[in-house]
């Protein structure tokens, strides 16, 4: 499966996310859903933010024009939200999966979708 298919099929076609993307730890975008623009400065914050939450806690994260506030994080997954929109950032061995939901979806199933793909990628070495 190509990375674009991972985003379109494994993430978006579940109906639990509005946008999705997979980026590598060095900052390159492996795939992104249609219309999802992530700029390099925010990518750098995401990568650094997984190790140091304060990068995301002060000033938040702006993705695709929406500014998200840091809600919680552990060693693998971060969750940030703005009103009824939210973004899950799941770190795997070589990548970070980005799953965005808006007011048409709810966070809990979105969390499961991102976690499922993250666990799968880790099981195959990514």
């Amino acid at each position, binding site marked *: 499966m190509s990375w674009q298919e991972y985003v379109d099929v494994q993430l978006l076609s579940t109906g639990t996310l509005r946008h999705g993307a997979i980026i590598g730890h060095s900052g390159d975008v492996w795939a992104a859903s249609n219309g999802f623009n992530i700029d390099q400065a925010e990518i750098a914050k995401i990568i650094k933010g997984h190790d140091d939450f304060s990068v995301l806690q002060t*000033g938040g994260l702006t993705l695709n024009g929406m500014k998200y*506030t*840091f*809600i919680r994080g552990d060693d693998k997954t971060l969750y940030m*939200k703005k009103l009824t929109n939210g973004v899950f950032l799941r770190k795997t061995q070589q990548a970070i999966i980005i799953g965005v939901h808006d007011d048409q979806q709810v966070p809990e199933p979105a969390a*499961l979708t991102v976690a*499922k793909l993250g666990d799968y990628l880790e099981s195959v070495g990514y």
Partner: protein
Amino acid sequence: MSAGQISGGDDISALVIDTGSRNVRFGFSGNDTPTLTIPSVVGAQSSGTETSNFVGDTELLYPHKHMDIERPVTNGVIQNVEKVCEIYSYGLNRLTGRRNADLSELRVSHPILMIDPIVCPSAVRAELVEYLFETLDCPAVYFAHSAVTACYASARYTGLVLESGAGYTAAVPIHEGYALHNHVVSSPIAGDVITGILDSKLNDKHVDLLSPYQYFKRGSSVTHRHLPGITDSYHAFRRAMLVEDIKESICDVPDVPMDDSTDPTPPESYSLPDGSTVTLGTERLTVPEVLFNPTMLDTTAGRNNNPAVQGMVVSSIASCDESIQRDLFQNILPVGGSTAFPQFVRRLTSEIDTMKLPVFKTKVHSYNPAERGQAAWTGGSILSSLGTFHQLWLDRAEFLEHGKGVANTKFL
């Protein structure tokens, strides 16, 4: 298939369970208050190789021989999942009116909302979810933290919840319905610590705290009764119940900082079950003062430099993103039994104001003191009866597909 399709939406009444360090509250979604409140305690009586577990007021108030009192929940953390599930089975059996003699046959057909303390590790949820789906055959489950549901009970999605019950005190910032886990400040100084201090003061005054099983009373003469085989842990349990009642009846927090050297306060008296009275003066106020000034404690808890409640509120909010601090300062919500002292809200307000915060106005909101200990349960009842809520349950199909770890992933 979403959980909503299986659970049927508004028609199915969910059960709401709030697990605390002192009591577990059980009830039906949509009700104002829990139907059943029982101690978070299991009385274990072993004879030979068999152990009987006694749960609930009726059994625990009877002085069974050789019954050791075990507390599966300490300082807000569920330490012993097997024992706490004994409490759940007993409570659910009574709640659903089945009166099964054999609790191992208990099956529950309602969805269950479990409320747990924010200081309880999320790994416990994975153990509990196995009990709920595999032992009880429950159709759907949701987990929420008590601070979040208490916030809903105050009709808010955002606020700084200061929860203080028996086992722990925590300042939990809630932002749009989500607890900011990384900004929680907690301390073990709460109701049980206050009870312990009061107990030692009563000991110093050589007050005999006799519970009904410990005396015979004829007219006005009281003779001690020594039942054989009663364990020390049982005596301590009954004594603590009495001291807790004294604390809840006549103690209060002072409206200004106070210690034992302050001018004496008008004393108040409490009538003990055996007819004698105990009178407390300044200790009425200096004992709960430990919430606002933990350095007064000369026990190990004090030496660990635990924060005072006003410090916990301010440092928790100060650690959050600047854009949300204003809303948090204006929505400080004390909940839990140990915040129900009559002057607590007034004292907390004046302490926070004295910390001279530059820009922010502070407002501490007073949730009905008589119900403050149940605020988390009431919020759970509200949450589980919202129409939009029914798509969020974790159902058995998802549990079978993802395994017990799903309890940690799905609930934020």
